């Protein structure tokens, strides 16, 4: 799966188009307002729960003392048990503690990288749509170029160019993930730019920057935040992937990618849980964030989004 899932047609997962049809009241149900109110409150509660859970994972990982990661050879390579629910690794470290710390770090990396990517997308998208025609052509050409090169290769190149480690990896992820959102923002701006109220505003003698700030940017707020959150899973996955391949975070850091690459050696030795349980936790976190993004889109743009 490449690129972001921000398309608005009715081909999204789990056939939620039915829900959308229900919203517009085409299925013959009366009281559409009440139905949508209930669904909206439900969605808001759902978003709150997901956000609280994600925040809890982050705080748990950040507050956990480093002492919990101390090697204890008396307990090395234990299978999952009540005391160590994810088992212990070859140095006797508790895998659950390492996983939570890794997820916490992933969240931090994801926040920084996807914020960077979203800001680039906003600037580039608005510039393309508001500037002259040749600017738009150049930006579109760059977007096509970035889309044409496989993400991972590009991230590795940027990461190596900017010295390996956290900085290079963050820059790599931010520089490769702005394209999809930039395209969407460009399209939105182009559409709003031709609105009658923009023509009226120009007739009032307002300058292009004034119109951009007062008329166009407010329309970008939902797209921006939803796009930002939907970038998150990509950023986290790439962080883990890159770290797994050895181009990302250093081996001393408690990252999921490090855990996974270490565990590869033990899979054949019968300790598959060392890879599967942390990997599964990462996938669950990513799915949670993705759901948060979709829920938020539904809340911000009820007519256009499908939950």
């Amino acid at each position, binding site marked *: 799966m490449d690129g972001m899932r921000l398309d608005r047609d009715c081909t999204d997962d789990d056939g939620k188009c039915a829900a959308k049809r229900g919203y517009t009241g085409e299925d013959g149900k009366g009281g559409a307002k009440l139905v949508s109110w209930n669904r909206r409150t439900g969605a808001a509660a759902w978003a709150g729960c997901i956000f609280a859970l994600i925040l809890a994972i982050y705080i748990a990982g950040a507050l956990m003392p480093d002492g919990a990661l101390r090697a204890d050879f008396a307990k090395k390579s234990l299978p999952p048990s009540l005391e160590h629910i994810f088992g212990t690794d070859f140095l006797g470290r508790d895998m659950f503690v390492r996983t939570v710390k890794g997820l916490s770090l992933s969240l931090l990396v994801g926040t920084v990288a996807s914020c960077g990517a979203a800001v680039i997308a906003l600037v580039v998208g608005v510039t393309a749509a508001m500037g*002259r025609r040749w600017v738009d052509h150049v930006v579109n050409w760059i977007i096509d170029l970035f889309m044409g090169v496989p993400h991972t290769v590009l991230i590795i190149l940027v990461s190596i160019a900017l010295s390996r480690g956290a900085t290079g990896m963050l820059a790599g992820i931010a520089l490769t993930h702005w394209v999809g959102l930039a395209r969407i923002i460009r399209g939105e701006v182009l559409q709003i730019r031709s*609105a*009658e*109220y923009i*023509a*009226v*505003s*120009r*007739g*009032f*003698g*307002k*300058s292009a920057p004034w119109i951009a700030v*007062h*008329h166009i940017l*407010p*329309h970008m707020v939902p797209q921006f935040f939803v796009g930002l959150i939907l970038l998150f899973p990509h950023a986290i996955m790439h962080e883990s992937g890159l770290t797994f391949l050895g181009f990302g975070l250093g081996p001393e850091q408690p990252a999921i990618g490090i855990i996974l690459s270490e565990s590869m050696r033990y899979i054949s030795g019968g300790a598959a849980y060392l890879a599967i349980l942390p990997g599964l936790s990462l996938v669950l976190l990513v799915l949670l964030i993705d759901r948060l993004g979709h829920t938020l889109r539904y809340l911000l743009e009820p007519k256009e989004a499908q939950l």
Partner: protein
Amino acid sequence: MMGALEAKNISFGYDRKRKVLDDVSISVGAGERVALVGPSGCGKSTLCKVLAGHLEPWSGEVTLDGEALFGRDAGQGTGFEPWRGPGHGHRPCPVQLIYQHPEKAVNPRRKLGKTLTEAYVPGEDVLRALGIEPAWSNRYPAELSGGELQRFCIARALAPGVEFIVADEISTMLDVVTQAQIWQALIRICEVRHIGLVAVTHSPELAARISTRVVELLA
């Protein structure tokens, strides 16, 4: 001193193959009220947009008191500018267009108070004449009806320095009572401030009632 609004030899089309306006000229004197009539699709709305500088004509020019109102500033390399003149870029254009669909002509994400005061702060008298309640300023466009929104669109167009109002079927979407109210208020303000009016309408009765001259645009 106010002068006449003139459009000279305007040609325009939305695509290259079909011209909507072919060498159209119209002249409206200062303070004059002209009703623009004609069959659907003959280019009345397009002419309105050209008059107010919302569209750039292929050829021809719009002048006020003999001076070109809109154009490209070759020196600065900017695009089609809606208003060229003294204080250019900061003052409302002397020709203001009011659209047919008020819900499309106001930004749905801005409260109406901000929309109303975008060009200037309308006085109490204008607001009262148009029947705009102070409480509406705190609402979003989706919370008001078309007639209520159209009152805002008219009020915001009556900025100081405005010499012509171009009204593109501004009352077609409204009920009869609102229509009468809005037109009475608008015409009174135009008379007091000596503002000229170009009004598009499909109704011969309305045309006869509001205008001092009827111009027919042929298809």
